[in-house]
């Protein structure tokens, strides 16, 4: 897989440097290349936003679960088997008609890997990190989310080892859907707080 990928273009200076460093670290016994491949496989194919979407769909449909998620998100997410690195201590924050939550890590780019996978590049961008705490509404507009003035915006800056999962509002018109169908509606960005889920049947 790696070779296929690298053969598409002449390798960049950074690609060559990384390859050289990997060679040294492998020869010295610092890394096992199979471990490198395995952890990439984990985050590219196993751990991702489908985990968080299942948590959200269950919270939408199971009031007792939702109560547990509010009370102790780490335990409630643990029930579903979605703990792991960068998800050891979880807090779920719920959007409502009057409250919109959005998550950032201004100091680096902390993100709840175990429920959302690895963060998108925009989450790690200097623009997002610097701006969303000071002008969240302007940033959200760049994501196409234009919040009314009477909706309270709560920004969560992940400054310690607590990781945040936004529980988006359940879209209107989804009463007939079961939990797996609901989970399919839940996008990654809606669980970071930079998207609002469209009503069912609307074009988006």
């Amino acid at each position, binding site marked *: 897989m790696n070779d296929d990928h*690298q053969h598409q273009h002449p*390798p*960049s*200076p*950074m690609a060559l*440097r*990384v*390859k*050289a*460093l*990997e060679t*040294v*670290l492998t*020869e010295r*016994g*610092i*890394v*096992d290349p199979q*471990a*490198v*491949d*395995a*952890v990439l496989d*984990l*985050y590219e194919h196993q*751990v991702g936003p489908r985990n968080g979407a299942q948590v959200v769909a269950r919270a939408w449909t199971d009031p007792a679960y939702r109560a547990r998620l509010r009370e102790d998100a780490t335990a409630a997410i643990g029930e579903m088997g979605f*703990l*792991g*690195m*960068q998800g*050891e*201590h979880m*807090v779920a924050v719920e959007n409502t008609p009057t409250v919109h939550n959005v998550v950032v890590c*201004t*100091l*680096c780019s902390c993100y709840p890997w*175990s429920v959302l*996978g690895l*963060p*998108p*590049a*925009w989450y790690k*961008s*200097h*623009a997002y*990190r*610097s*701006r969303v*705490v*000071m002008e969240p509404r302007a*940033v959200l507009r760049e*994501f196409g989310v234009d919040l009314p003035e009477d909706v309270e*915006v709560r920004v969560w*800056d*992940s*400054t310690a*080892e*607590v990781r945040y999962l936004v529980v988006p509002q359940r879209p209107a018109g989804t009463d007939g859907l079961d939990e797996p169908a609901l989970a399919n509606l839940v996008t990654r*960005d809606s669980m970071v707080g*930079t998207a609002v889920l469209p009503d069912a049947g609307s074009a988006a």
Partner: protein
Amino acid sequence: MNGIHDMGGMHGFGAVDPTDSEPWHDHWESRVFALTLAASRHLRSNLDRGRFQLETLPPDAYLRGYFERWFARLIDQAEDAGFIDAASRAAIDHGTPVPARTKDREPLPAEALVHVAATGRPTARDIGTAPVFAVGEAVRARNLHPAGHTRLPGYVRGKAGEVIGYRGAHVFPDSHAALEGEDPRHLYAVRFSAAALWGNAAPPGDSVTLDLFEPYLEAAA
């Protein structure tokens, strides 16, 4: 430290590009990510020290890009730990093959690494003291400017907020990053009104909440 990484509230970085939505732009970025995890056993670092090692890169190097700085950190760590010397570092920088050496460590095997990733490393600790602040209490973030690692962003220092949650006691990054032990401290969710942080022009109901360690806080007058 008051470094370039402490960028909450800065202007000048332009618009956010929501279409830049993949974890990496290039294959090498994924290798740097995974190498960093796979090598961690032997790098004389830890989660907090690793962050500090990013923060102490020269500011222009820090700004070069996310995985560019992970690479810079990894090669620094490898040199700190004695796995590469200046000559092999120069060779790596030129992207040239480096002479083979004897294997002198046992790397973390794939199963063990995946196990760590899939189970995590909790930072909560039991400590014998009661938390000083109560939920609902008014607190102020202290005006601290340590040269070392801290997780108290500049934009809240000196500002008053309210404790809205107690998170338990956790490994204290300021100590752990300095390799001075875990020294766990009580951790609180503290909510600041946007107006307290950014002035009265901010929307009245909006807020920013941070998880702040007890040594970062004092009772608000």
